[in-house]
Protein backbone atom coordinates (compact mmCIF):
# COMPACT_ATOMS: atom_id res chain seq x y z
CA UNK A 1 0.00 0.00 0.00
CA UNK A 2 2.83 2.39 0.82
CA UNK A 3 4.51 1.94 -2.61
CA UNK A 4 1.13 2.67 -4.20
CA UNK A 5 0.85 5.89 -2.20
CA UNK A 6 4.39 6.83 -3.17
CA UNK A 7 3.60 6.24 -6.83
CA UNK A 8 0.47 8.33 -6.56
CA UNK A 9 2.35 11.14 -4.87
CA UNK A 10 5.06 11.07 -7.53
CA UNK A 11 2.57 11.17 -10.38
CA UNK A 12 2.36 14.75 -11.79
CA UNK A 13 -1.29 14.17 -12.60
CA UNK A 14 -2.02 13.61 -8.93
CA UNK A 15 -0.26 16.81 -7.98
CA UNK A 16 -2.26 18.75 -10.57
CA UNK A 17 -5.50 17.16 -9.44
CA UNK A 18 -4.79 17.99 -5.82
CA UNK A 19 -3.74 21.52 -6.67
CA UNK A 20 -6.78 22.20 -8.79
CA UNK A 21 -9.46 20.61 -6.75
CA UNK A 22 -9.20 22.45 -3.44
CA UNK A 23 -9.63 21.00 0.07
CA UNK A 24 -12.29 18.48 -0.91
CA UNK A 25 -9.90 16.20 -2.73
CA UNK A 26 -7.95 15.67 0.48
CA UNK A 27 -10.81 13.40 1.50
CA UNK A 28 -9.72 10.95 -1.19
CA UNK A 29 -6.53 10.28 0.78
CA UNK A 30 -8.37 9.43 4.03
CA UNK A 31 -8.67 5.67 3.47
CA UNK A 32 -5.06 5.44 2.28
CA UNK A 33 -3.86 7.10 5.48
CA UNK A 34 -6.27 5.58 7.99
CA UNK A 35 -5.90 1.98 6.79
CA UNK A 36 -2.10 1.65 7.18
CA UNK A 37 -2.13 3.72 10.37
CA UNK A 38 -4.69 1.45 12.05
CA UNK A 39 -2.87 -1.65 10.76
CA UNK A 40 0.42 -0.49 12.29
CA UNK A 41 -1.20 0.57 15.56
CA UNK A 42 -3.05 -2.74 16.02
CA UNK A 43 -0.03 -4.85 15.07
CA UNK A 44 2.36 -2.89 17.29
CA UNK A 45 -0.08 -2.70 20.19
CA UNK A 46 -0.77 -6.44 20.29
CA UNK A 47 2.91 -7.30 19.86
CA UNK A 48 3.94 -4.99 22.67
CA UNK A 49 1.21 -6.26 24.99
CA UNK A 50 2.46 -9.82 24.55
CA UNK A 51 6.20 -9.33 24.37
CA UNK A 52 6.64 -6.31 26.67
CA UNK A 53 9.86 -5.43 24.90
CA UNK A 54 9.60 -1.85 26.14
CA UNK A 55 9.28 -2.67 29.82
CA UNK A 56 12.11 -1.84 32.19
CA UNK A 57 12.68 -0.74 35.74
CA UNK A 58 12.39 3.05 35.96
CA UNK A 59 15.40 3.24 38.25
CA UNK A 60 15.90 6.95 37.69
CA UNK A 61 12.50 7.61 39.28
CA UNK A 62 12.18 4.72 41.73
CA UNK A 63 15.62 4.75 43.34
CA UNK A 64 15.79 6.59 46.65
CA UNK A 65 17.68 9.80 46.02
CA UNK A 66 18.28 12.85 48.19
CA UNK A 67 19.06 16.08 46.38
CA UNK A 68 20.56 19.20 47.87
CA UNK A 69 22.83 22.18 47.41
CA UNK A 70 21.08 23.13 44.18
CA UNK A 71 22.78 25.84 42.18
CA UNK A 72 21.25 27.10 38.99
CA UNK A 73 22.14 29.57 36.34
CA UNK A 74 19.76 30.76 33.64
CA UNK A 75 21.10 33.36 31.24
CA UNK A 76 19.25 34.72 28.23
CA UNK A 77 21.38 34.32 25.14
CA UNK A 78 19.01 35.20 22.31
CA UNK A 79 15.65 34.66 20.70
CA UNK A 80 14.20 32.09 18.37
CA UNK A 81 11.21 33.51 16.55
CA UNK A 82 8.59 32.35 14.04
CA UNK A 83 8.99 28.68 14.97
CA UNK A 84 6.43 26.23 13.61
CA UNK A 85 6.75 23.70 16.41
CA UNK A 86 5.49 24.05 19.96
CA UNK A 87 8.65 22.28 21.24
CA UNK A 88 12.25 23.29 20.72
CA UNK A 89 14.35 21.27 18.38
CA UNK A 90 16.39 18.48 19.99
CA UNK A 91 14.80 18.73 23.43
CA UNK A 92 15.89 15.85 25.64
CA UNK A 93 14.82 16.89 29.11
CA UNK A 94 12.41 13.96 29.31
CA UNK A 95 14.75 11.39 27.77
CA UNK A 96 16.87 10.58 30.79
CA UNK A 97 18.64 7.61 29.22
CA UNK A 98 20.09 9.58 26.32
CA UNK A 99 23.67 10.43 27.14
CA UNK A 100 25.35 13.64 25.98
CA UNK A 101 28.89 14.94 26.12
CA UNK A 102 30.61 14.18 29.41
CA UNK A 103 32.20 16.90 31.45
CA UNK A 104 34.21 16.80 34.61
CA UNK A 105 32.35 18.87 37.14
CA UNK A 106 34.70 21.24 38.81
Amino acid at each position, binding site marked *: MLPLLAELAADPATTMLLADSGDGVIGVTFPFLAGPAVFAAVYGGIYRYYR*NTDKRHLFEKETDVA*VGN*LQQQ*DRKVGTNNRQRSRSMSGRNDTDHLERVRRISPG
Partner: protein
Amino acid sequence: MSEPPQRPPWARPDQPARPPQGQGGPVPPAPSGPVPPPPPGDGRFPAGASGGATGAGQQMPHWPGQQPPSAPAGGQPLLGDEAMAGAADAARRGFADRIIDTSSGRDDGLNKCPRCGSTDIHYSLTAKALFCGYCRNTWNEENAEQAFGLDSSIAELRGHTMASGTSDVREDLTVVTLKCQGCGAEVVINVEQQTHARCHWCRQTLSINSQIPNGAVPDAVLPFQLTREEAVQRIDAFAGKRKGFAHGRFKREFVPDNVMGVYIPYMVVDGNMHAVLRGTGEVTTRQYTVRVGSGDNARNEPRYDADVYSVQRAFDLLVDDLTVESAARYSAQDNSAATNNILHAVQPYDVENAVAYNSHYLKGFTSERRDLNVRDVDDQVEDKFLAIARAKAGPTVSRYDRGVRWTEEGVAVHGTRWVTVYVPVWLYSYADSASGGGLVHYIAVNARNGNTMGSVPVSHPKIFAVACAAGTVAAAVAAVVGFGWFLMG
Protein backbone atom coordinates in the same frame (compact mmCIF):
# COMPACT_ATOMS: atom_id res chain seq x y z
CA MET B 1 32.89 -11.56 30.53
CA SER B 2 33.66 -8.13 29.28
CA GLU B 3 37.08 -6.61 29.50
CA PRO B 4 37.28 -4.35 32.53
CA PRO B 5 37.65 -0.71 31.59
CA GLN B 6 41.18 0.42 32.10
CA ARG B 7 40.48 4.03 32.82
CA PRO B 8 36.80 4.54 33.48
CA PRO B 9 36.03 8.17 32.75
CA TRP B 10 34.44 8.71 36.14
CA ALA B 11 37.17 6.99 38.03
CA ARG B 12 39.18 10.08 38.66
CA PRO B 13 36.77 12.94 38.52
CA ASP B 14 37.97 16.23 39.80
CA GLN B 15 36.21 17.29 42.91
CA PRO B 16 33.87 20.16 42.24
CA ALA B 17 35.12 23.49 43.39
CA ARG B 18 32.29 24.21 45.76
CA PRO B 19 31.82 27.75 46.89
CA PRO B 20 32.01 28.39 50.59
CA GLN B 21 28.68 27.79 52.28
CA GLY B 22 27.01 31.01 53.12
CA GLN B 23 28.39 32.88 50.19
CA GLY B 24 26.23 30.99 47.72
CA GLY B 25 27.07 31.49 44.14
CA PRO B 26 26.86 28.92 41.45
CA VAL B 27 29.57 26.66 40.30
CA PRO B 28 29.31 28.17 36.81
CA PRO B 29 30.34 31.72 36.05
CA ALA B 30 28.14 34.49 37.33
CA PRO B 31 25.18 35.21 35.10
CA SER B 32 25.45 38.12 32.79
CA GLY B 33 21.83 38.39 31.78
CA PRO B 34 18.45 38.57 33.42
CA VAL B 35 17.62 35.59 35.56
CA PRO B 36 14.21 34.12 34.90
CA PRO B 37 11.82 33.67 37.77
CA PRO B 38 12.40 30.58 39.87
CA PRO B 39 10.68 27.36 38.90
CA PRO B 40 7.86 26.16 41.09
CA GLY B 41 9.07 24.14 44.04
CA ASP B 42 8.62 20.41 43.62
CA GLY B 43 9.12 19.55 47.21
CA ARG B 44 12.54 18.21 46.46
CA PHE B 45 14.42 21.47 46.33
CA PRO B 46 13.77 23.87 49.17
CA ALA B 47 12.38 27.20 48.08
CA GLY B 48 15.48 28.98 49.22
CA ALA B 49 17.50 27.15 46.65
CA SER B 50 15.45 27.88 43.59
CA GLY B 51 16.72 30.42 41.23
CA GLY B 52 18.77 32.04 43.86
CA ALA B 53 22.05 30.35 43.63
CA THR B 54 23.23 33.16 41.47
CA GLY B 55 22.96 35.73 44.14
CA ALA B 56 25.90 36.37 46.39
CA GLY B 57 25.26 35.88 50.05
CA GLN B 58 22.39 33.46 49.49
CA GLN B 59 22.43 30.34 51.63
CA MET B 60 22.17 27.05 49.78
CA PRO B 61 20.22 24.20 51.35
CA HIS B 62 22.19 21.42 52.94
CA TRP B 63 21.37 17.93 54.07
CA PRO B 64 20.66 17.63 57.72
CA GLY B 65 23.89 17.27 59.56
CA GLN B 66 25.96 18.14 56.54
CA GLN B 67 29.28 19.69 57.39
CA PRO B 68 30.68 22.60 55.46
CA PRO B 69 32.46 21.26 52.43
CA SER B 70 35.77 19.90 53.44
CA ALA B 71 36.31 17.70 50.43
CA PRO B 72 39.95 17.24 49.69
CA ALA B 73 41.26 19.54 47.05
CA GLY B 74 42.14 17.87 43.84
CA GLY B 75 40.71 14.70 42.40
CA GLN B 76 40.07 11.75 44.64
CA PRO B 77 40.69 8.55 42.75
CA LEU B 78 37.60 6.33 42.70
CA LEU B 79 37.30 2.93 41.17
CA GLY B 80 40.35 3.29 39.00
CA ASP B 81 42.92 0.56 38.82
CA GLU B 82 45.12 2.32 41.32
CA ALA B 83 42.22 2.83 43.68
CA MET B 84 41.13 -0.79 43.36
CA ALA B 85 44.65 -1.95 44.03
CA GLY B 86 44.84 0.43 46.96
CA ALA B 87 41.60 -0.88 48.40
CA ALA B 88 42.76 -4.46 48.04
CA ASP B 89 46.03 -3.52 49.68
CA ALA B 90 44.15 -1.80 52.48
CA ALA B 91 42.04 -4.92 52.92
CA ARG B 92 45.14 -7.06 53.17
CA ARG B 93 46.46 -4.78 55.85
CA GLY B 94 43.15 -4.93 57.68
CA PHE B 95 41.92 -1.42 57.00
CA ALA B 96 38.23 -1.90 57.54
CA ASP B 97 37.36 1.58 56.30
CA ARG B 98 37.69 0.56 52.63
CA ILE B 99 36.68 -3.10 52.63
CA ILE B 100 33.83 -4.17 54.87
CA ASP B 101 34.14 -7.76 56.00
CA THR B 102 30.74 -9.41 55.55
CA SER B 103 31.87 -12.99 55.95
CA SER B 104 29.95 -15.15 58.39
CA GLY B 105 33.06 -16.27 60.22
CA ARG B 106 32.00 -19.90 59.81
CA ASP B 107 34.30 -22.46 58.29
CA ASP B 108 33.18 -24.43 55.26
CA GLY B 109 31.48 -27.64 56.19
CA LEU B 110 28.78 -28.01 58.82
CA ASN B 111 26.42 -25.04 59.24
CA LYS B 112 24.47 -25.94 62.34
CA CYS B 113 21.16 -25.01 63.91
CA PRO B 114 21.98 -22.61 66.76
CA ARG B 115 19.67 -24.54 69.11
CA CYS B 116 20.29 -28.23 68.48
CA GLY B 117 23.33 -28.41 66.24
CA SER B 118 21.57 -30.24 63.40
CA THR B 119 22.43 -29.44 59.79
CA ASP B 120 19.00 -30.47 58.52
CA ILE B 121 18.02 -26.86 57.83
CA HIS B 122 16.11 -25.23 55.00
CA TYR B 123 14.27 -21.99 54.31
CA SER B 124 10.57 -22.28 55.10
CA LEU B 125 8.31 -20.11 52.95
CA THR B 126 5.44 -20.48 55.40
CA ALA B 127 7.53 -19.39 58.38
CA LYS B 128 9.57 -16.95 56.23
CA ALA B 129 12.60 -18.12 58.17
CA LEU B 130 15.26 -20.78 58.34
CA PHE B 131 13.72 -23.95 59.76
CA CYS B 132 15.50 -26.77 61.55
CA GLY B 133 13.93 -30.07 60.52
CA TYR B 134 15.19 -31.73 63.67
CA CYS B 135 14.14 -29.40 66.52
CA ARG B 136 11.71 -27.20 64.50
CA ASN B 137 13.59 -24.08 65.51
CA THR B 138 13.00 -21.08 63.23
CA TRP B 139 15.25 -18.05 62.92
CA ASN B 140 16.59 -15.50 60.48
CA GLU B 141 20.04 -14.08 60.12
CA GLU B 142 20.64 -10.50 61.19
CA ASN B 143 19.77 -7.64 58.86
CA ALA B 144 22.88 -7.18 56.72
CA GLU B 145 22.86 -3.38 56.77
CA GLN B 146 22.83 -3.29 60.53
CA ALA B 147 25.13 -6.24 61.02
CA PHE B 148 27.89 -4.84 58.80
CA GLY B 149 27.35 -1.10 59.22
CA LEU B 150 26.15 -0.68 55.64
CA ASP B 151 23.52 1.80 56.78
CA SER B 152 25.98 4.56 57.65
CA SER B 153 25.31 7.98 56.15
CA ILE B 154 25.78 8.12 52.39
CA ALA B 155 26.71 11.80 52.69
CA GLU B 156 29.83 10.75 54.56
CA LEU B 157 31.01 8.28 51.92
CA ARG B 158 34.47 9.12 50.61
CA GLY B 159 36.42 7.01 48.16
CA HIS B 160 34.94 3.64 47.49
CA THR B 161 33.85 1.23 50.13
CA MET B 162 33.37 -2.36 49.08
CA ALA B 163 31.84 -5.22 50.98
CA SER B 164 34.09 -8.25 50.94
CA GLY B 165 31.63 -10.20 48.76
CA THR B 166 32.36 -7.88 45.82
CA SER B 167 35.93 -9.10 45.39
CA ASP B 168 36.97 -10.02 41.86
CA VAL B 169 35.64 -13.33 40.61
CA ARG B 170 38.08 -16.16 39.95
CA GLU B 171 36.89 -18.23 37.04
CA ASP B 172 39.34 -21.05 37.73
CA LEU B 173 37.83 -21.92 41.10
CA THR B 174 35.44 -24.72 40.22
CA VAL B 175 35.97 -27.40 42.84
CA VAL B 176 36.28 -27.18 46.62
CA THR B 177 37.07 -30.08 48.93
CA LEU B 178 35.27 -29.96 52.27
CA LYS B 179 36.31 -31.92 55.32
CA CYS B 180 33.25 -33.14 57.21
CA GLN B 181 33.61 -32.07 60.82
CA GLY B 182 31.24 -34.91 61.77
CA CYS B 183 33.18 -37.92 60.51
CA GLY B 184 36.32 -36.58 58.89
CA ALA B 185 35.40 -37.61 55.35
CA GLU B 186 36.46 -35.38 52.47
CA VAL B 187 33.69 -34.36 50.11
CA VAL B 188 34.27 -32.60 46.80
CA ILE B 189 31.78 -29.91 45.74
CA ASN B 190 31.54 -28.42 42.28
CA VAL B 191 31.05 -24.83 43.43
CA GLU B 192 30.06 -23.71 39.96
CA GLN B 193 26.87 -25.71 40.35
CA GLN B 194 26.11 -25.96 44.06
CA THR B 195 27.07 -24.77 47.51
CA HIS B 196 25.74 -27.81 49.42
CA ALA B 197 26.49 -31.52 49.49
CA ARG B 198 25.66 -34.47 51.69
CA CYS B 199 28.53 -36.21 53.40
CA HIS B 200 28.37 -39.65 51.81
CA TRP B 201 29.40 -41.29 55.11
CA CYS B 202 27.46 -39.58 57.89
CA ARG B 203 24.72 -37.88 55.77
CA GLN B 204 25.28 -34.48 57.36
CA THR B 205 24.82 -31.45 55.11
CA LEU B 206 28.05 -29.68 54.24
CA SER B 207 27.95 -26.12 52.94
CA ILE B 208 30.17 -23.42 51.57
CA ASN B 209 30.02 -20.84 54.35
CA SER B 210 33.04 -18.70 53.53
CA GLN B 211 33.16 -16.14 50.73
CA ILE B 212 34.95 -18.21 48.14
CA PRO B 213 36.04 -15.93 45.31
CA ASN B 214 34.02 -17.48 42.50
CA GLY B 215 31.01 -15.19 42.88
CA ALA B 216 28.78 -17.87 44.41
CA VAL B 217 28.63 -16.31 47.88
CA PRO B 218 27.19 -12.79 48.17
CA ASP B 219 27.34 -10.35 51.05
CA ALA B 220 23.63 -10.63 51.74
CA VAL B 221 20.51 -12.54 50.74
CA LEU B 222 16.99 -11.23 50.30
CA PRO B 223 14.86 -14.26 51.20
CA PHE B 224 11.75 -15.33 49.30
CA GLN B 225 8.44 -13.97 50.57
CA LEU B 226 5.95 -15.16 47.96
CA THR B 227 5.15 -18.84 48.02
CA ARG B 228 5.46 -21.01 44.98
CA GLU B 229 1.66 -21.34 44.77
CA GLU B 230 1.22 -17.57 44.73
CA ALA B 231 3.83 -17.29 41.99
CA VAL B 232 2.19 -20.01 39.88
CA GLN B 233 -1.13 -18.22 40.26
CA ARG B 234 0.33 -14.91 39.09
CA ILE B 235 2.16 -16.46 36.15
CA ASP B 236 -0.95 -18.38 35.11
CA ALA B 237 -3.02 -15.20 35.28
CA PHE B 238 -0.42 -13.23 33.32
CA ALA B 239 -0.24 -15.80 30.52
CA GLY B 240 -4.00 -16.39 30.65
CA LYS B 241 -4.62 -12.78 29.58
CA ARG B 242 -2.31 -13.33 26.62
CA LYS B 243 -3.55 -16.53 25.09
CA GLY B 244 -5.48 -15.11 22.12
CA PHE B 245 -2.50 -14.23 19.95
CA ALA B 246 0.08 -16.43 21.65
CA HIS B 247 2.03 -18.88 19.58
CA GLY B 248 0.20 -22.20 19.31
CA ARG B 249 3.16 -24.20 20.53
CA PHE B 250 3.48 -21.99 23.61
CA LYS B 251 -0.18 -22.53 24.45
CA ARG B 252 0.24 -26.29 24.19
CA GLU B 253 3.45 -26.43 26.16
CA PHE B 254 2.73 -23.81 28.81
CA VAL B 255 2.89 -25.42 32.26
CA PRO B 256 3.08 -22.76 34.98
CA ASP B 257 4.01 -25.41 37.56
CA ASN B 258 7.45 -25.46 35.95
CA VAL B 259 8.27 -22.18 37.71
CA MET B 260 11.62 -22.15 39.51
CA GLY B 261 12.82 -20.14 42.46
CA VAL B 262 16.02 -18.39 41.44
CA TYR B 263 18.39 -16.14 43.36
CA ILE B 264 19.86 -13.57 40.97
CA PRO B 265 22.99 -11.63 41.97
CA TYR B 266 22.83 -7.86 41.99
CA MET B 267 25.34 -5.20 42.92
CA VAL B 268 23.73 -2.66 45.19
CA VAL B 269 25.43 0.72 45.00
CA ASP B 270 25.16 3.80 47.20
CA GLY B 271 26.69 6.98 45.83
CA ASN B 272 27.57 10.43 47.09
CA MET B 273 28.20 12.74 44.16
CA HIS B 274 27.94 16.20 42.67
CA ALA B 275 26.21 16.53 39.31
CA VAL B 276 26.42 19.29 36.72
CA LEU B 277 24.18 19.65 33.65
CA ARG B 278 24.48 22.28 30.94
CA GLY B 279 22.25 22.99 27.99
CA THR B 280 19.81 25.33 26.30
CA GLY B 281 16.20 26.03 27.15
CA GLU B 282 13.45 27.98 25.44
CA VAL B 283 10.49 29.88 26.84
CA THR B 284 7.58 30.85 24.63
CA THR B 285 7.09 34.60 24.56
CA ARG B 286 4.40 34.87 21.93
CA GLN B 287 2.04 32.56 20.11
CA TYR B 288 0.16 33.72 17.04
CA THR B 289 -1.15 32.57 13.69
CA VAL B 290 0.01 33.61 10.28
CA ARG B 291 -1.76 33.34 6.94
CA VAL B 292 0.26 31.29 4.48
CA GLY B 293 -0.36 30.20 0.92
CA SER B 294 -2.55 31.92 -1.59
CA GLY B 295 -5.85 31.45 -3.28
CA ASP B 296 -7.59 28.19 -2.38
CA ASN B 297 -4.51 26.99 -0.50
CA ALA B 298 -4.44 29.94 1.89
CA ARG B 299 -4.57 28.75 5.50
CA ASN B 300 -3.70 29.75 9.03
CA GLU B 301 -0.68 28.26 10.70
CA PRO B 302 0.57 28.72 14.28
CA ARG B 303 3.90 30.37 14.98
CA TYR B 304 5.89 30.65 18.21
CA ASP B 305 8.41 33.22 19.35
CA ALA B 306 10.77 32.14 22.13
CA ASP B 307 13.55 33.44 24.32
CA VAL B 308 16.61 31.20 24.41
CA TYR B 309 18.46 30.64 27.68
CA SER B 310 21.72 29.04 28.57
CA VAL B 311 20.75 26.66 31.38
CA GLN B 312 23.00 25.14 34.01
CA ARG B 313 22.15 23.04 37.05
CA ALA B 314 24.57 21.81 39.69
CA PHE B 315 23.53 19.84 42.75
CA ASP B 316 24.57 17.13 45.14
CA LEU B 317 23.03 13.66 44.93
CA LEU B 318 22.84 10.92 47.50
CA VAL B 319 21.80 7.72 45.72
CA ASP B 320 20.61 4.89 47.93
CA ASP B 321 20.49 1.26 46.84
CA LEU B 322 20.87 1.53 43.09
CA THR B 323 20.79 -2.02 41.71
CA VAL B 324 22.81 -3.40 38.81
CA GLU B 325 22.76 -6.97 37.47
CA SER B 326 26.03 -8.73 38.16
CA ALA B 327 25.43 -11.94 36.21
CA ALA B 328 26.14 -11.48 32.50
CA ARG B 329 23.52 -14.08 31.61
CA TYR B 330 20.75 -11.95 33.12
CA SER B 331 22.09 -8.57 32.10
CA ALA B 332 19.34 -6.28 30.89
CA GLN B 333 21.85 -4.82 28.42
CA ASP B 334 21.57 -7.95 26.29
CA ASN B 335 18.21 -9.31 25.17
CA SER B 336 19.53 -11.31 22.25
CA ALA B 337 19.40 -14.73 23.90
CA ALA B 338 16.70 -14.16 26.51
CA THR B 339 14.17 -11.50 27.43
CA ASN B 340 16.30 -10.16 30.26
CA ASN B 341 14.44 -6.86 30.30
CA ILE B 342 11.62 -8.80 31.97
CA LEU B 343 13.84 -9.54 34.98
CA HIS B 344 14.79 -5.89 35.05
CA ALA B 345 11.16 -4.79 34.95
CA VAL B 346 10.00 -6.66 38.06
CA GLN B 347 12.18 -4.47 40.27
CA PRO B 348 12.42 -2.80 42.75
CA TYR B 349 13.59 -5.05 45.56
CA ASP B 350 13.62 -3.99 49.19
CA VAL B 351 17.33 -4.72 49.47
CA GLU B 352 17.49 -2.80 52.74
CA ASN B 353 15.83 -5.87 54.28
CA ALA B 354 18.47 -8.30 53.03
CA VAL B 355 19.95 -10.54 55.69
CA ALA B 356 23.49 -11.75 56.22
CA TYR B 357 24.41 -14.67 54.01
CA ASN B 358 23.61 -18.15 55.26
CA SER B 359 23.96 -20.95 52.75
CA HIS B 360 20.76 -22.60 53.98
CA TYR B 361 18.72 -19.77 52.43
CA LEU B 362 19.72 -21.11 49.02
CA LYS B 363 18.67 -24.70 49.67
CA GLY B 364 15.73 -25.69 47.50
CA PHE B 365 16.30 -22.83 45.08
CA THR B 366 18.73 -22.32 42.26
CA SER B 367 21.17 -19.45 42.39
CA GLU B 368 23.08 -17.76 39.63
CA ARG B 369 26.74 -17.15 40.29
CA ARG B 370 28.00 -13.57 40.00
CA ASP B 371 30.42 -13.30 37.09
CA LEU B 372 30.77 -9.52 36.75
CA ASN B 373 33.14 -7.50 38.89
CA VAL B 374 32.80 -3.93 40.05
CA ARG B 375 34.97 -2.76 37.17
CA ASP B 376 32.72 -4.54 34.69
CA VAL B 377 29.62 -2.63 35.76
CA ASP B 378 30.99 0.75 36.83
CA ASP B 379 30.38 2.32 33.42
CA GLN B 380 26.79 1.17 33.65
CA VAL B 381 26.54 2.59 37.16
CA GLU B 382 27.91 5.93 35.97
CA ASP B 383 25.28 6.04 33.23
CA LYS B 384 22.62 5.34 35.83
CA PHE B 385 23.94 8.12 38.07
CA LEU B 386 23.74 10.51 35.12
CA ALA B 387 20.22 9.36 34.27
CA ILE B 388 19.15 9.95 37.86
CA ALA B 389 20.73 13.41 37.77
CA ARG B 390 18.83 14.23 34.58
CA ALA B 391 15.57 13.00 36.09
CA LYS B 392 16.08 15.01 39.27
CA ALA B 393 16.89 18.15 37.28
CA GLY B 394 13.55 17.92 35.49
CA PRO B 395 11.43 19.84 38.02
CA THR B 396 13.95 22.70 38.11
CA VAL B 397 13.50 23.46 34.40
CA SER B 398 9.73 23.25 34.25
CA ARG B 399 9.45 26.92 33.32
CA TYR B 400 11.01 26.14 29.94
CA ASP B 401 7.75 25.25 28.24
CA ARG B 402 9.45 24.56 24.89
CA GLY B 403 11.86 22.18 26.58
CA VAL B 404 15.52 21.95 27.39
CA ARG B 405 18.26 20.42 25.28
CA TRP B 406 20.99 19.17 27.61
CA THR B 407 24.34 19.15 25.83
CA GLU B 408 26.82 18.44 28.63
CA GLU B 409 26.59 16.39 31.80
CA GLY B 410 28.88 14.97 34.43
CA VAL B 411 29.08 13.65 37.93
CA ALA B 412 31.97 13.97 40.36
CA VAL B 413 31.69 10.96 42.61
CA HIS B 414 32.87 11.64 46.15
CA GLY B 415 32.13 8.19 47.47
CA THR B 416 30.47 4.89 46.63
CA ARG B 417 29.60 1.75 48.54
CA TRP B 418 29.22 -1.62 46.82
CA VAL B 419 27.45 -4.68 48.17
CA THR B 420 26.45 -7.92 46.43
CA VAL B 421 22.97 -9.23 47.17
CA TYR B 422 21.02 -12.25 46.00
CA VAL B 423 17.45 -11.25 45.14
CA PRO B 424 14.61 -13.77 44.81
CA VAL B 425 12.66 -14.34 41.59
CA TRP B 426 10.09 -16.93 40.65
CA LEU B 427 10.94 -17.60 37.05
CA TYR B 428 9.11 -19.38 34.29
CA SER B 429 11.19 -19.76 31.16
CA TYR B 430 10.15 -20.94 27.73
CA ALA B 431 12.62 -21.56 24.93
CA ASP B 432 11.00 -20.48 21.69
CA SER B 433 12.49 -22.89 19.22
CA ALA B 434 10.40 -21.34 16.44
CA SER B 435 12.48 -18.17 16.57
CA GLY B 436 15.82 -18.29 14.82
CA GLY B 437 18.21 -18.29 17.77
CA GLY B 438 15.93 -20.07 20.24
CA LEU B 439 15.00 -16.98 22.24
CA VAL B 440 14.18 -17.73 25.87
CA HIS B 441 11.01 -15.99 27.05
CA TYR B 442 10.70 -15.27 30.75
CA ILE B 443 7.68 -14.70 32.90
CA ALA B 444 9.06 -13.46 36.21
CA VAL B 445 7.55 -12.73 39.59
CA ASN B 446 9.37 -10.56 42.09
CA ALA B 447 9.31 -12.88 45.10
CA ARG B 448 9.27 -9.94 47.51
CA ASN B 449 6.42 -7.74 46.28
CA GLY B 450 4.74 -9.85 43.59
CA ASN B 451 5.53 -7.60 40.62
CA THR B 452 4.89 -9.76 37.56
CA MET B 453 6.10 -9.22 34.03
CA GLY B 454 6.67 -11.52 31.12
CA SER B 455 7.18 -12.12 27.45
CA VAL B 456 4.85 -14.42 25.54
CA PRO B 457 5.81 -15.60 22.04
CA VAL B 458 3.27 -14.39 19.51
CA SER B 459 1.70 -15.87 16.42
CA HIS B 460 2.57 -13.33 13.73
CA PRO B 461 0.02 -14.64 11.17
CA LYS B 462 -2.79 -14.13 13.69
CA ILE B 463 -1.72 -10.59 14.53
CA PHE B 464 -1.27 -9.83 10.86
CA ALA B 465 -4.78 -11.05 10.05
CA VAL B 466 -6.40 -9.02 12.83
CA ALA B 467 -4.37 -5.92 11.98
CA CYS B 468 -5.35 -6.28 8.30
CA ALA B 469 -9.01 -6.61 9.25
CA ALA B 470 -8.83 -3.54 11.50
CA GLY B 471 -6.97 -1.59 8.82
CA THR B 472 -9.55 -2.53 6.20
CA VAL B 473 -12.45 -1.46 8.40
CA ALA B 474 -10.68 1.80 9.20
CA ALA B 475 -9.99 2.38 5.50
CA ALA B 476 -13.66 1.73 4.66
CA VAL B 477 -14.88 4.16 7.30
CA ALA B 478 -12.31 6.70 6.20
CA ALA B 479 -13.45 6.26 2.58
CA VAL B 480 -17.03 7.13 3.54
CA VAL B 481 -15.86 10.14 5.53
CA GLY B 482 -13.45 11.14 2.79
CA PHE B 483 -16.15 10.88 0.12
CA GLY B 484 -18.37 13.15 2.18
CA TRP B 485 -15.47 15.55 2.57
CA PHE B 486 -14.90 15.43 -1.19
CA LEU B 487 -18.52 16.25 -1.92
CA MET B 488 -18.51 19.18 0.48
CA GLY B 489 -15.12 20.45 -0.75
